[in-house]
């Protein structure tokens, strides 16, 4: 067990270093930088000497690439990602730590709900395959899920938010309410999250349903299922301990992928509902070429992808005894 986890951990550390290096190299390979844009925008009113001072102020290190790289790595491990350009002098870490909880809350909650409902419906659908639910409701959910998220998000926003005016159309909470551990604040957060959550759940459920359903149907053909039935076990026990337990294995991989996109994937939803999460920040950073912020956000995504995969490995380890030696 220790060896398996150790080797996985080593792999993730290596993958992290590779990703971080790419994150360092890519912006430097792109033509143009924020200062050239500033310089051009000022139309000759800035002297090259002033430019140099600005660069230093913004934390851009001059020097050969290995010095820059070393500084960058040191920054990552000491939690210093430099100041943001757009929100100067706010540090990137502060912006990210302000936005991260919103995204994790929104995407995490919706993914968990989607997973839970989708998997249960998938089991149900597979068990009663060919029935009404399986041939009408399940394809309908898949159909809705196949819409671009943007379209469903706008339809829901327009219908429930603008026309019916049941839910707020933007932001994470009512600014008039003081942020804090109060019931009023929680209610406000829940109220504002309703539409984005609804959109993400409606869009996501079909995928999970079919993934689980198809995996279940494969598993139901296995001999150990027939033997489970022949043993006179209750249907529930055969379905859960024999079928779902085995059918869940391929789903775990998909869950890991989904969890890693939790951070990046909510971008469109956050934009449409003007939700104060990472996706919104990322869009802003791209638009204004805020490289330090962009790099910081990419770093967070890398960490999330790797962490989710590591959790999936652990889950596999726990679910499938064939991996344990």
């Amino acid at each position: 067990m220790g060896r398996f986890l150790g080797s996985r951990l080593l792999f993730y550390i290596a993958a992290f270093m590779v990703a971080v290096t790419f994150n360092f190299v890519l912006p430097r390979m792109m033509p143009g930088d924020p200062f050239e844009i500033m310089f051009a925008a000022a139309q000759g009113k800035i002297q090259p000497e002033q430019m140099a001072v600005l660069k230093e102020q913004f934390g851009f290190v001059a020097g050969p690439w290995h010095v820059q790289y070393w500084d960058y790595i040191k920054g990552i491990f000491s939690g210093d990602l430099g100041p943001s350009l757009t929100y100067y002098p706010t540090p990137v870490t502060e912006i990210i730590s302000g936005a991260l909880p919103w995204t994790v809350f929104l995407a995490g909650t919706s993914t968990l709900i989607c997973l839970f409902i989708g998997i249960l419906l998938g089991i149900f659908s597979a068990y009663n395959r060919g029935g009404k639910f399986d041939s009408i409701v399940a394809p309908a959910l898949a159909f809705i899920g196949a819409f671009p998220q943007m379209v469903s998000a706008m339809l829901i926003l327009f219908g429930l938010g603008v026309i019916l005016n049941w839910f707020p159309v933007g932001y994470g909470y009512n600014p008039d309410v003081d942020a804090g551990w109060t019931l009023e604040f929680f209610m406000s957060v829940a109220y504002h999250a309703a539409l984005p959550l609804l959109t993400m759940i409606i869009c996501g459920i079909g995928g999970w349903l079919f993934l689980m359903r198809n995996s279940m149907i494969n598993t139901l053909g296995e001999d150990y299922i027939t033997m489970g039935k022949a043993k006179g076990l209750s249907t529930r026990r055969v379905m859960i301990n024999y079928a779902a337990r085995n059918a869940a294995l391929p789903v775990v991989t998909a869950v890991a992928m989904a969890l890693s996109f939790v951070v990046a994937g909510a971008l469109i939803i956050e934009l449409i509902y003007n939700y104060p999460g990472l996706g919104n920040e990322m869009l802003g950073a791209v638009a204004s070429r805020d490289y330090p912020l962009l790099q910081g956000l990419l770093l967070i995504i890398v960490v999330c992808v790797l962490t989710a995969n590591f959790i999936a490995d652990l889950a596999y380890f726990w679910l499938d005894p064939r991996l344990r030696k």
Partner: protein
Amino acid sequence: MTELANQQAETLLDIRGLSVEYLVGDARLRAVDKVSFTVNKGETVGLAGESGCGKSTLAFALAKLHKPPALIAEGEVLYKGRDVLSFDDEELRRFRWKETSVVFQSAMNCLNPVISVNAQICDVLSAHHPEMNRGELQDRARELLKVVGIHPDRLDQYPHQFSGGMRQRAVLAISLALKPQLIIMDEPTTALDVVVEREIMDQLSELKKQFGFSILLISHDLSLMGEITDRIAVMYAGKLVEIAPSEEVLFNPQHPYTKGLVNSFPHLLGEKKELTGISGNPLNLYSPPAGCYFEERCPERIERCKSTDPALITLNPQHKAKCHLLG
């Protein structure tokens, strides 16, 4: 055999005119066609026939384990006088394993790979004896492994840690868990090499003496059957073509198909003969002929075989065969 003869033959399982059909598109293929025979208490009955003759389909139907597109078209399966096919879900659940357990064809695949052997023994015990506590379950599970010759310390291992033979033994242990009166064995040793097969068969005979259950052994291997069965039933294209005591089937077969089957296997003792086998291919069930199903491949066919299907003829109270030549 002599023991059996003394003991009054009491019918345990009485299969009456059982037919199983597969729905394929609009067609209904009769995989099992009006098969009737009985299994007595303590008796071992063999069910032989080539691949696709419907013997496994029949075995599954006996515990109502057949899956769509298979369906039972007609017939009764009387277990101690009660029709298994008319049981509701709960009656069926209680009947399964407690009265009749099944050892499947592929022991490799019929153990759940993600839960331990212990859990797979205990779940069947607690499903039928909810009153048993943890300790009792554990004791019984250890005892069962010991009975089939697996060291009880391996109880908490998973199926992938067992060899093929051990898995088959583990399945055997599970099949004995509730001391059923009948064990249906569907080619229990097909996936194993002959040495392991021999060990398991010997063990089975041993266990049978100890517990006194009946066995319905399904196999294509007549020589294996000859060693442990009391009677052998032979199926061809879904129909029962001959049923008789084992020695009769092996040394005095009456139906041409049975003769072909017997001649496909070498005898260990006695003169060396050229093995003949049966020419031709199994019947296409999409378009069954009007006459005898075996007519096309039969070396002894006569005019009548083409037009009329022979009835099952009783040669003596123990021996029946379905052939015009005997009529």
